[in-house]
Structure formats: C-alpha cells, structure tokens
C-alpha cells in the first residue's frame, strides 16, 4: 500500500518536474534541449497542451521544423492551441514548398499564402515576390522593414541530401544560419 502511494506521488512529482524543467530551459533559450526533452517525453504528456506548445516552440526556434508535424495535429482543444497549430502549419508548409521550389524549380509565384514573422516565412515571401525565374546558385534578399538586415538563401549539396540554408546578415555580419532539409 505504502509502495503504491509512493509510486503515485513520485510519478506526479516527476511529471511536474519535467514540465517545469522544460519551461526553465525555454526561458534560458536552450531551445534545442527543450525540443529533445519534449521529444523524449512526448508520449507521456501529449494530452497536456502547455507541454506540447513548449515543445513545439523549442523545436521551431532550434530549426527542427519537421518535428512540428505532431504538435500541429495534437494542438486543437483550446483557442490558443489552434492559433499556434495554424502558425506552425504555415511554417512547415512554407518550408516544404520552398525546398521543393529550390530543388525542383517549382513555381510558387502563383500562390498567395498566409505568412508569419518567422525567418523562414520572411524569406519565403521575398522568394515568391521574385515570380517565375531561372534557378540561381544563391539568392540575396533585403528585409523590407530594415535595409541593413538581409538574407542569403541557397542549397548546400551533400552526398546524401541537399540542405536548404538561410543566413541572416546585419550589414555584412552573419547573425544566424538556419539549415533545413
């Protein structure tokens, strides 16, 4: 009897501790760790939308965009969850479309899609504005809101898989490199 109560208490404490740990990691900008910890514990907490939201934002900011597919499907019970689910879905779709366009020359200019403030979306919008064009080795885009901010988009070819790279620049200084595939 004592043992059962102990296990129930321990399980509840552990569950609370993992979520709290995830939150602390998120606050400290350890997004990659948030994503991996969330991924490892997802099965246990997939009903907890706060946990799923945290996990999804961790994966988004650490550029693990493909991992958003499950949160997109599970976030649906509250208004906030649905808003975030739509937000992630747009980013995932834009990633897939841009990758397809860069590798296979698929024309995106005919689509008018929703957008977000995420870097991939900003680059996607700038790319679609180019219209139909000949494929290039790389693309340089200037941010319309800040002329000193610019983005470089190109495909990095690997022996196994080609990866889509977005580099953020301020003046000539590289701020961040995002790699998607």
């Amino acid at each position, binding site marked *: 009897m004592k043992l*059962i109560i102990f296990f129930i208490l321990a399980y509840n404490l552990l569950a609370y501790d993992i979520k709290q740990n995830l939150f602390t990691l998120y606050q400290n900008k350890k997004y990659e760790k948030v994503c991996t910890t969330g991924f490892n514990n997802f099965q246990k907490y997939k009903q907890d939308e706060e946990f799923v939201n945290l996990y999804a934002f961790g994966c988004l900011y650490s550029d693990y965009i493909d991992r958003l597919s499950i949160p997109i499907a599970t976030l649906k019970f509250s208004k*906030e969850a649905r808003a*975030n689910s739509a*937000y992630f879905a747009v980013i995932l779709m834009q990633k897939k479309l841009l990758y397809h366009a860069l590798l296979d020359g698929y024309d995106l200019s005919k689509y008018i899609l929703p957008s977000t403030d995420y870097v991939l979306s900003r680059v996607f919008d700038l790319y679609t504005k180019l219209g139909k064009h000949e494929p290039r080795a790389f693309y340089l885009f200037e941010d319309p809101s800040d002329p000193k901010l610019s983005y470089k988009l190109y495909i990095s070819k690997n022996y196994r898989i080609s990866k889509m790279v977005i580099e953020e620049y301020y003046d000539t*200084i590289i701020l961040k490199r995002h790699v998607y595939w």
Partner: protein
Amino acid sequence: MLNIHDLERRWKIYKIKSFLPYIVIGISLIIILPLAYYFYPDSKKSMPQKKQIIQKKKVQVTDIPKKAKVDIMEPKVIIAQKKSVTPQPAVQTQKLQPSMNFMKNIQHQASQPQYVKKPTVKKPKKIAKQKVAQEVIQDITPEITPVKKEPKVAITIERKETQNDIFEIIKRFKKNNNPALSLFVAKKYYELGNYEQSYNYALITNQINSNIEASWIIFARSLAKLHKKDKAIHTLQAYIKVSHSSNAEILLNEITSGKFK
C-alpha cells in the same frame, strides 16, 4: 487449551486488514475518476467538437447543390467578377501571430525559485566588461571624459533573445576589430536599454572609423539617455560641422528642444 474464540477474532481482524488496501484503492478510484473526467478539459471539449463535425458534414451536403445551381443560372455574373479580379495588385497577406499565453499559465503554476536564480549568476562578468570598456575609453579619448559610474547596489540582468547574439558578436569583434560589429553591439545595447555599454561601443566604433553617422548618433543618444545632454549636444555640434549630417541635426534639435526622451 486453545482459545478458539480469540483465535477466530484475530483471524477476522487479519482478514479485514489484508483486504483494506484494495478497499481503499477502490474507493479512491471511484472518487477520483469522475472528478478527473469532470475537471479534465480535453474530455469536455472533445465531445462538442465531434458534434460540430457531424453538423458541418450535414451543412456541406446541403450547400453543394445550391452552389451548382447558382453557377448554372448566372454565368454572366461570374464572368464579370473574373474580369474585375484580374487587374488587382498583389494582395497583402496577413501575418499569423503565435499565442504565448500558455507561458503565463506555466509561470503561475511554478513556484519560481529556479527562474529567479538565473540572472544573478552573470554579475561579475558584466562588471568586468564594463571596466574593460571604461579603460578603452580612457585610452582612446582624452578630450571626452568617460561617464562616471555610480556604484550600483545590485545589477539585475534580464535574459533576452539578443543577449547571446551580442556576446557572440563581441567575441568576433575582439578578433577582427570590425567597426560594423561594434556598431551592431552598440545598437543592440541601446535597444536593450543598456546605455552605458551602448555608449562604450559607439565610442569604440568612432575611434576605429569616425565617418559612420549611425555610430555618432547612437553615441549622442546614449549620452542623452545617461543624462549628459550637454555632452551629447557638444558632440553632435562638432560632428555636424564636419559631416553636415541631416540626421545628426534632427537629433540635435530634438535634444535641445527637449523632445528627445
């Protein structure tokens, strides 16, 4: 002689005790399960959603023939609409915003000691960096007196998204002394409200390259924010004489008229 009555009584007590855990667990489950079902939000919300789906399906079935009828009956109207649609300029797409209210809920749940601990850890680094920056100022500019720092009792550092980027760029600046890097750091510190550091890095940028307008403006803005308006005005006047910068003039007017806040 064996006392059978006593043995039987003890046996009954023993039997009851052996069943007691099962009885307790059973009762607690009977109480907890309905409560959990009642309070758990998913179970409540998932039910009406299914109903909605069924209702939607019904509506769709009834709607389709109506639309088809409209297409057949009024083909001219559709053609006219198409004509008006084509010359329109590119439609601006709406930006989706993520909802971060769940963070507040988690924060409320938390007892918070872990989160509060973090900012105080980096105190010595910050002070050391400020000292280094002050030394640099003294070496570079004998004319402009460095900002006198009043001893602060406690420095609280708020962790922000750009903080890590700034540290990375400072590292790179120390390696290659690129004025674009120090200007970036100055701007970022200004945005974060750390006007002393923004002053320091703008000054370093000016020393490396005195022709960068943005750097002089950040420098003057930081001085004004540090309640050194006279110095800011003096610096801007000197810079305007050399460069005839219109942005510097605008800032000077703002500071002198008291509009700058």
